[in-house]
């Protein structure tokens, strides 16, 4: 290895791609320096022309774009607004609650109840079925056995 043929300054100039007549003259006569220069130029070129594979390159670019321009979730206003209006209307109108009884109907019902009770206050309890449940009739066979 001989690194003293060309000065450090000359080497730097050569690698930077600058013209140097004295360095060129030395290179023409020195195989060792030519070999070193060739290795350098090859190495720098390798670093400078390297490319990632196209798939990776595209993927990384797309990922960067997605990060820089995040995709906003589209809101379907034309579908959301009618649904919201329907919900609001349902909350206000509450169709599931019992229908209010009209005052006129209520009065008629009360009048009918009053009339029934005035005739016989126990009439509502006098239904034969109700009475038979509350007061069961005595069984004749049991009475006969005892006597």
């Amino acid at each position, binding site marked *: 290895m001989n690194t003293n043929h060309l000065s450090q300054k000359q080497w730097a100039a050569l690698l930077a791609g600058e013209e140097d007549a004295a360095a060129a003259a030395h290179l023409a006569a020195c195989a060792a320096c030519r070999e070193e220069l060739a290795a350098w130029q090859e190495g720098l070129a*390798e670093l400078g022309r390297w490319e990632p594979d196209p798939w990776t390159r595209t993927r990384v670019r797309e990922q960067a774009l997605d990060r820089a321009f995040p995709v906003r979730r589209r809101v379907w206003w034309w579908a959301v607004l009618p649904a919201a209006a329907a919900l609001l209307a349902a909350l206000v109108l509450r169709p599931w609650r019992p229908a209010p009884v009209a005052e006129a109907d209520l009065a008629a019902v009360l009048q009918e109840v009053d009339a029934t009770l005035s005739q016989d206050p126990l009439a509502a309890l006098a239904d034969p079925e109700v009475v038979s449940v509350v007061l069961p009739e005595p069984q004749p066979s049991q009475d006969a056995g005892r006597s």
Partner: protein
Amino acid sequence: MAPRVEGEEERTTLVARARSGDRAAAEAVLRAVELPVWRTCRALLPPHEDVEGAVQDVLVKVLKKLGSYRGEGELAAWAALVAANHCRDLLRRRRLVPFVALETGEEERNDPAAVLPSPEPDPERALRARQGIQRLKRALRELPARQQQVFSLRFFAHMSLAGIAAALGVDEGTVKTHLHRALARVREQVKEAWP
């Protein structure tokens, strides 16, 4: 090949559209800048780092920072700068910069490319070439920020010295000085592999 956004007018229009939320324009911007970003991240990050993740982060940064792009120099150069700074910050946060070992050979073992058969007919030469590239990458990570930026712009974004000067807002002589210093430092660490 990455599409180049040549004219200043075209570039300005594209950037304005991307800034206003035009996804197609943003994609065109990324296509124009992504290769230098990939190369910069690959060169400046150690093999165990998530290069893909870093590239994705840089591309998002590029799109979000389009407002701060003043139109000086090429978009690709500006993006390569963002990438170089991002890698540097990433390594600084993980405190990896001061602990990069030079002699372990771990990177060569971890690099999948190192175990693939090489098309080079001379195996010894191919091995030296691979080792040289790994050493070069390690050396790059240890460069001061400005030298690293200039190196990345020159060799990964393929910028001219004048273009780099425009991108960094310095004069061409300053760029040349940084580049020469970077190359001299890197060569010191690589010359054993590339005698």
